């Protein structure tokens, strides 16, 4: 079970949360302008990376708020969580930063 740091409530066990898929997929501003391929990309196609992933979680059994996380899908380690609405971080920099701080210790 993962320990997840809700940006509002702090660290809580995974079972308090609900996963909500890849983050930063913005709803199109002008939906009628999209062609079919763009709709497929928005609705169905996902990065699904083996490595660092930005994803949404919802603290459903806590504050009930959505937030985002940077997680390594190989180790399942979460490098950062941040409030919804914040820009997408540079995931490699985030992970490198955490690892560098760790090796200093």
């Amino acid at each position: 079970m993962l320990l997840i740091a809700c940006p509002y409530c702090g660290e809580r066990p995974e079972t308090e949360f609900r996963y909500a898929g890849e983050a930063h997929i913005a709803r199109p501003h002008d939906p009628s302008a999209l062609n079919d391929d763009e709709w497929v990309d928005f609705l169905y196609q996902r990065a699904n990376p083996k490595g660092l992933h930005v994803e949404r979680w919802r603290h459903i059994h806590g504050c009930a708020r959505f937030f985002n996380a940077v997680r390594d899908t190989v180790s399942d380690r979460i490098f950062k969580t941040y409030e919804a609405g914040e820009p997408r971080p540079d995931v490699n920099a985030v992970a490198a930063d955490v690892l560098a701080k760790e090796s200093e210790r």
Partner: protein
Amino acid sequence: MQKFSGFSLIRQALSGHQGWQAQWRTPEPKASYDAIVVGGGGHGLGAAYYMAKEHGLKNIAVLERGWLGGGNTGRNTTIIRSNYLFDESAALFDHAVKLWEGLSQELNYNVMFSQRGVLMLAHTVHDVQSFKRHIHANRLNGVDNEWLSAEEAKEFCPPLNISPGMRYPVVGAALQRRGGVARHDAVAWGYARAADALGVDIIQNCEVTGIRRGVNGAVEGVETTKGFIGSKRIGVSAAGHTSVLMAMAGVRMPLESYPLQALVSEPVKPVFPCVVMSNTIHAYISQSDKGELVIGAGTDAYTSYSQRGALHIATHTLDAICELFPMFRRMRMLRNWGGIVDVTPDRSPIIGKTPVPGLFVNCGWGTGGFKATPGSAHVFAHTIATGEPHKINAPFTLERFRDGLMIDEAAAAAVAH
């Protein structure tokens, strides 16, 4: 190929089993092939076999990054059935069951296909309505599936608890008698041995790290940990790693990869006659010929390539197993493990062409593709060899998401099956 038979077994026994040959060669890759299959699971090995056998292609390679069947093929709970709702799915899965029925003879390899019946438990009014709808749809498609009352289900599977006091009482069940289980490793090994005998090069410890495309966009070959290997026809059959491979060719996929886990108990004498599954309370169980209870759990909530699932997921399944089969409450579990399953938005597979000329894909089998192995391999071989889908896999395109032609088994059974 050294033929297996009762006679060869006796002869080898008399000479102390010293005369068995390796079941397939260990070749170094050639500079190029007529077709390359990426992924040495049952689907990939089977596709190579049918390409060699039915389409006359002789110069074929299967590239596997680890060992044969080390992916989901060797990690699954081997439930085989074909009672899916939609016409397209019923045709595909029943094609597979028909091939399963003759597979041991076809491959001269005992895949231990055992049609002991698959019992799907209904716990709610919704389950009852949905199962009955499946049964009627299946009958129209010539696929066997029948409705049992709770008492009839208990008669078919005596360990089943049907007491009305359960948290989720069993109110009935759907039974597919032609369903059952098979030996997962044997499926990979049997196809590998038969494909090798037809000249297919099976190359293990060979990870594909890139897909090379020419100026016209068509594939030219693959970069691997054993160097570049050329081919104008590449079939990707890499289950949970499909998104990673397709990204190498610049193709985004409607897939997400999740860990799915299974566990086995200590071995005991034969106590369990069939396969029982409950999608509603997440429990899948059968007994292997070794005597272990083979138990399937659900997927984790989040995408991952970690090949292990969370403990609370397995615990949840064991809760359900103990409730359904109180006599297993004191069984000890020996091992558990996970595999990475690639899930599509409609829970149906994708088998067909891609936007890249020469690149074909077989994926999206999610939590339920072992049962389809021979059928999927057979139609994927047709697709790679002829460049066009077989009529059975024609509806399972990548474009169906764009064209709104989903085969929405998700609504019917959105969990492991």
